[in-house]
């Protein structure tokens, strides 16, 4: 029963480090999801825009980010952000030392931009599901654009988008495993460090897997009840 010893809390084992890393994973996922949702507002607006150029920008964003491996996006943004900040600092302030942004920030931004592309698709899809007739009906009873948006579109879009956004959350959670390459100590990085110094890779990667399973299962439970809440009052045929 060596693994119990290895995973114990305190100085002897790695249990507390793994739990702390889990907190980091949760924090990065939540920040990334929020960044993603924020990005997806603009993504949706631009993809539904009547202006061809703006629409093209939105389409390029979702196509490129969803068509490139997540690992590459993270690498690109990780190095790209740092390079960009350095060249800005250099040209504006003549500062030519090496600058590194906080890893957490880069990680959350990188995963957030990935998650935003998927959220954009989900929210755009939800907007398109709302029947046109409802919008016309709302206008015909004299609602202005804001009221149509607030009273007719938003309540339905949120309900339609919820299952899809739940999937995006699960995806985001799993994508945070890739930010181990940036050096941020989340679950994967911690498992990597621990297995390196104890020669027990299976123990630690298996605990990492179990921690992810706990996170994904707990969130799918939470998402289910959120969906039930959002759908209360809506009659649904039994699937």
């Amino acid at each position: 029963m060596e693994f119990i010893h290895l995973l114990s809390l305190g100085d002897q084992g790695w249990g507390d480090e793994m739990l702390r890393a889990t907190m980091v994973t949760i924090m990065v996922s939540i920040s990334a999801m929020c960044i993603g949702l924020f990005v997806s507002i603009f993504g949706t607006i631009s993809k539904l825009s009547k202006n061809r150029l703006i629409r093209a920008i939105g389409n390029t964003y979702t196509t490129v980010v969803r068509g490139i491996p997540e690992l590459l996006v993270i690498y690109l943004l990780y190095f790209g952000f740092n390079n960009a900040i350095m060249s800005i600092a250099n040209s504006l302030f003549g500062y030519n030392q090496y600058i590194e942004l906080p890893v957490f920030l880069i990680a959350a931004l990188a995963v957030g931009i990935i998650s935003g592309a998927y959220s954009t698709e989900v929210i755009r899809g939800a907007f398109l599901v709302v029947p046109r007739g409802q919008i016309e009906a709302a206008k015909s009873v004299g609602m202005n654009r804001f009221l149509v948006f607030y009273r007719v579109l938003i309540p339905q879009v949120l309900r339609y988008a919820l299952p899809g956004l739940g999937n995006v959350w699960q995806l985001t959670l799993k994508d945070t495993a890739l930010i181990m390459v940036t050096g941020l100590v989340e679950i994967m990085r911690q498992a990597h460090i621990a297995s390196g110094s104890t020669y027990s890779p299976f123990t630690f990667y298996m605990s990492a897997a179990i921690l992810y399973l706990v996170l994904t299962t707990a969130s799918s439970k939470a998402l289910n009840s959120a969906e039930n809440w959002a759908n209360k009052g809506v009659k649904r045929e039994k699937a």
Partner: protein
Amino acid sequence: MNIDGICISLPKEYLGLKVQLMCDSLPKLLSGIPLTIELVAISLSIGFILAMCIALMRISGSRLLNIVSRSYVFYFRGTPLLVQIFLIYYGLAQFDLIKESFLWPFFREAYWCGILALTLNTGAYTAEIIRGGLQSVPHGQIESARSMGMSGILLYRRVILPIAFRQALPAYGNEMILMVKGTSLVSTITLMEITGIARHIIAKYWTPVEIFLIAGIIYLFINYLVTRIVRYAENRYTPYLQTNE
């Protein structure tokens, strides 16, 4: 065609990107495509057979088979692909039992570990896609096939599977793209596919943005081809479901 000649004619730097170096490393990065395609093709085909078995186990009605297939899908869909790859490549080496067994030559190779992890991963996702397809077959179709005297394999071959595959086609297309992207993760266990080669070049010249950009464009192009192929298949097999966009 001599690419060196073209590369030299380019400006050395443009918009802060080392354009000449990007052009120079293009052939090297392109040489990673065969391995990427190979990994995708092998894991998708074995994964598909695996997924068929898992999906059939799930709807078999046997409780034990149901639990086995559910746990399999639960595990592989609930954990990141990276964990699965590391667990197989680094993790299994922890056990002397495996190190001394006849399986070791297999688990020692990053290539086979990568293929195994990718296969098991796509197997779980594809099983869910197939299950969804099978469940979408309208009951009336099965009943009418039965009333014509079809049963068992014939019923599956002529009615259920064709309808299910057509339903599952778009979702499977997404899974294929996920797999193309997933192969980039095996670069972390030393395989020299596109991302692996990119990391190798970067270790030499330290131009991460330039090289990853080119690598990203190559992946984008592969995925573009995959979507075209899937779209073609959709038009061919489900023309009645297509909208004229």
